[in-house]
């Protein structure tokens, strides 16, 4: 297995950026459909509003920058950012929350840095992290899994009213809920994990819904892998690191730590591994670097989930590792064929080398 490969990754991409992004959008469909199936119309209103804001703002900023909006918009990257941000938000978010997130993602994280290809941070995750820090209350209200058409489901008019900000989500009875990670985070110290789950802390079917959604993202990720739009390195390294750490912690103390399966399927890990961390602009470049990058994201996710204040951590972990990408790229530059391996860092002459010198 050769980890060091001299040719650049994008050289293998079969088509233009627009086509790649279109396939990426296609790959999000199973995940979006499953999310909507379990969590209702609010998912779809989120995605539609976020994409509409993203495209409009991108066009506006491009016009201000004196670029042709149509030429740049056809790369579909604003659509992808909108979709990725839309599915990350709690279903049934109101328009101002989505708008603030999209402004942070498209205007600040992407266009102010120079547009697609120049952004050091994943735009969708910048938007998400900003919202999570700025509006903790609406960002942690996750819908209960009442489905699209069930008796308790939020109807489409209700979802639109939530989007317009006319209804307080707390007033709608069916809306309140928590993610499994959030619930487990707030487990009292004295309660064992088995007792905690036996007390059914979540609305019925929540765990099942999250597992199904994770598997749906896995299907989309498999499509990306099959089309060779992403490499296996980042997802495997990230999920592998998470599984190893979760298994170690679970093995030491199963009464207070979640199982590896819970950590992999109970939150945004699969979605993050295939759709967020693999962003070709903000991730590491070489294959070896991608392994380090993915593993770093996985370690940070587990670190924040188990010891931090936030229940899920994919956004923060990805942003932190985006910071580290120049460093990783510097130390993992592949050897050019016919050249020596590059020497990196400061080489300190060892003391014994000096004494052994012939005098």
């Amino acid at each position, binding site marked *: 297995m050769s980890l060091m490969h001299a040719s650049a990754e994008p050289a293998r991409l079969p088509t233009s950026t627009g086509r790649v992004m279109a396939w990426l959008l296609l790959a999000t469909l199973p995940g979006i459909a499953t999310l909507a199936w379990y969590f209702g119309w609010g998912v779809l209103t989120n995605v539609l509003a976020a994409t509409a804001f993203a495209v409009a703002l991108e066009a506006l900023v491009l016009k201000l920058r004196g670029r042709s909006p149509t030429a740049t918009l056809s790369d579909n990257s604003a659509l992808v950012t909108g979709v990725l941000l839309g599915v990350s938000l709690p279903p049934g978010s109101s328009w101002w929350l989505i708008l603030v997130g999209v402004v942070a993602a498209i205007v600040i994280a992407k266009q102010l840095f120079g547009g697609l290809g120049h952004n050091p941070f994943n735009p969708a995750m910048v938007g998400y992290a900003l919202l999570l820090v*700025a509006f*903790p209350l609406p960002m942690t209200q996750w819908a209960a899994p009442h489905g699209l058409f069930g008796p308790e489901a939020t109807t489409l008019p209700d979802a639109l009213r939530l989007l317009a900000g006319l209804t307080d989500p707390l007033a709608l009875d069916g809306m309140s809920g928590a993610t499994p990670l959030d619930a487990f985070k707030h487990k009292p110290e004295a309660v064992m994990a088995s007792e905690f789950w036996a007390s059914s802390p979540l609305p019925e079917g929540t765990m099942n819904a999250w597992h199904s959604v994770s598997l749906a993202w896995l299907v989309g990720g498999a499509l990306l892998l099959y089309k060779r739009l992403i490499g296996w390195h980042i997802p495997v390294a990230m999920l592998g690191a998470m599984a190893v750490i979760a298994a170690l912690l679970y093995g030491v103390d199963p009464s207070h730590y979640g199982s590896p399966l819970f950590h992999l399927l109970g939150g945004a890990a699969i979605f993050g591994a295939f759709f967020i961390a693999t962003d070709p602009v903000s991730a590491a470049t070489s294959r070896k670097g991608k392994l380090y990058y993915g593993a770093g994201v996985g370690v940070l996710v587990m670190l924040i989930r188990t010891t931090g204040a936030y229940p899920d951590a994919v956004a923060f972990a990805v942003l932190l590792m985006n910071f580290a990408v120049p460093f990783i790229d510097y130390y993992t530059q592949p050897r050019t064929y016919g050249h020596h391996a590059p020497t990196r860092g400061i080489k300190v002459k060892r003391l014994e080398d000096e004494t052994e010198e012939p005098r």
Partner: protein
Amino acid sequence: MSQFNELVRNGLWANNPALVQLLGLCPLLAVTSSVVNALGLGLATLLVLMGSNMSVSLIRHHVTSNVRLPAFVMIIAAFVTCADLLMQAYTFELHQILGIFIPLIVTNCAILGRADAFASRNPILPSATDGLMMGLGFAGVLVVLGSLRELFGQGTLFADMDLLLGPVAAGWQITVFPNYEFLFLILPPGAFFATGLLIALKNVIDDRLERRRRLRQADQPRESRRVRVTGTIR
């Protein structure tokens, strides 16, 4: 006099410690969540900067270059202790809010930077002017940033000014947006965003000024190259 004009221009705008040299970012980002915090720390920094610049200038012929940095740090630390004690005496509540960031003025690179780069090479009057202008430039950016973050973070301006200025300022609070909160701008990441936007704004203004200056230069008629012998040609 032109030297002093230059010092004023450098300190307040062209070589502003916060917006151009990007020094002292730690207090800049940490305490600018409201106008009163920003003004309090800005004034303390101004005091220390002026004092240290004048003292360093006075002893500049007696300190060898090998020991200059420890000597400067000692001087700065002495002034910071003064500022710390003064704030404790007269603005105790503000002192409690600013907490560790008052002792941390010692580590503000803008102060050591001015001591080493300017005050140790110049007589006392220019050094004092430089300290005053650099301090005003730094405090000005702090206050602008503080008012931006207070306004768009919690919707008020000049809240709690009585902590710094006494009971006179108790009624100064202006509530611009009632029942409004954008927590992000109050927290440190918002300070990064706001500082970045301020720096961008300064660069835009500089760009415009430069372009206007060039246009004005281009408009002026060039002098005729012909050697004139007598009178003017009409």
